[in-house]
């Protein structure tokens, strides 16, 4: 359970760190190829995790370009795969959340004395509900993912076994009650996290 949380929190942190700035930049900038780039992001939101797993596996395998890192079947490999899966999701949700904020707000904030960076922060504050939805979606996709982490992590006991891969293993072994119990733990973690985010979302809506 601890390993699952470690992977999820690390990957969510990295994809948020990458996804929110890129999504905001994409929403606010104009450049040639923006539509194509946006189409790539939207495609990325539906990336089959097992394909990501295969890609990361090939990159990290001994003969791959990142083979020297020695990350295959490690915690880092799982975090990398999960970050690749969740980042487009967070970029896409950030993009649509920022675009949904009234475009007249930014010049209004700048007319009140905000710098460009401060007006961008104001914009993100207005988009906060959407951003929380992005985090919830990212969290859900990471914690429930099994194919990619199985491929690049190897489901090694005590090192890369997470709740989803443990459920698969116990099901294959016929330990259905243990598999079900692990599944319930997984659901509980997901519920508690999402409920916390929803409560936070509600509070920030009330105390404005």
């Amino acid at each position, binding site marked *: 359970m601890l390993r699952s949380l470690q992977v999820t929190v690390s990957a969510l942190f990295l994809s948020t760190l990458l996804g929110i700035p890129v999504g905001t930049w994409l929403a606010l900038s104009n450049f040639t190829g923006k539509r194509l780039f946006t189409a790539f992001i939207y495609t990325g939101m539906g990336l089959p995790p097992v394909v990501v797993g295969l890609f990361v596996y090939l990159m990290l395998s001994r003969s791959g370009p990142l083979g020297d890192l020695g990350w295959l079947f490690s915690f880092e490999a799982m975090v990398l795969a999960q970050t690749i899966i969740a980042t487009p999701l967070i970029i896409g949700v950030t993009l649509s959340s920022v675009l949904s904020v009234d475009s*007249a707000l930014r010049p209004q*904030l700048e*007319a*009140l*004395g905000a*710098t460009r960076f401060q007006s961008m922060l104001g914009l993100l504050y*207005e988009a906060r509900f959407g951003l929380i939805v992005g985090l919830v979606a990212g969290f859900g996709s990471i914690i429930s993912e099994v194919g990619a982490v199985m491929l690049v992590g190897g489901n090694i006991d005590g090192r890369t076994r997470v709740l989803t891969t443990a459920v698969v293993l116990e099901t294959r072994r016929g330990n259905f009650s243990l598999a079900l119990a692990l599944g319930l733990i997984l659901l509980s973690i997901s519920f508690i996290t999402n409920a916390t985010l929803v409560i936070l979302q509600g509070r920030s809506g009330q105390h*404005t």
Partner: protein
Amino acid sequence: MDTLYTLDSVKKQYGERTVLHVPHLHIREGEVLGIVGPSGAGKSTLLRQLAFLEAPTEGLLQIHSDNHTYAAENIPIEVKRQLTMVFQRPVLMTRSVRKNVAYGLKLRGERDIQRQVEIVLERVSMGHLADAHPRTLSGGELQRASIARALVLQPRVLILDEPTANLDPYNVRLIEELLVDQNERFGTTIVIVTHNIFQARRLADRVGLVYEAKLIEIAPTEAFFESPQDERTRAFSSGNLIY
């Protein structure tokens, strides 16, 4: 009166299209300048240049502050914060009126923010709505909150883009009184775009006509309406301008 703004051969273009041409304009410290003209003529573009939200494509746009002259391309944030703009459509953030009004003060690191906010909300007759959410306000209240958000900053220059468009006579009167009071009590320079020539007559010391992306004429209010030099000004003020 000292000169506050200098504009010389200012042009704003979007691609090949010229959306504003100001051959020459001086705006004086402490005056109320009314800008009139048909829709789409370039009035709002002129205001965005004056608020330094957009830079001119060519020409000279300068603001004079504390014996210094700053060009539009390199306005320090401290100088930019001496002016503020109220838009035709008030856009408030999704937080209470009080927090909206406090926003600019917080950016400036001001102290005693709550007291300043309460005073200005009383001035715009919105003290009882300090904790209201913008979605619960009427159009007139939203615009008054928007004006309070600007007035609380005690700006040197207040730029307003049709602040009373679509408002009822009560709110129009209230806002006009606020603007007159601000100008008389604090010497705030006011640049106001309006479609209403009667409003321009009531408020402005000088009036300018922007027509087909060009500042055609600018004159003291009386002269602008009674003895205009350009026939388009005459036609506009008599309601006969075809556009």
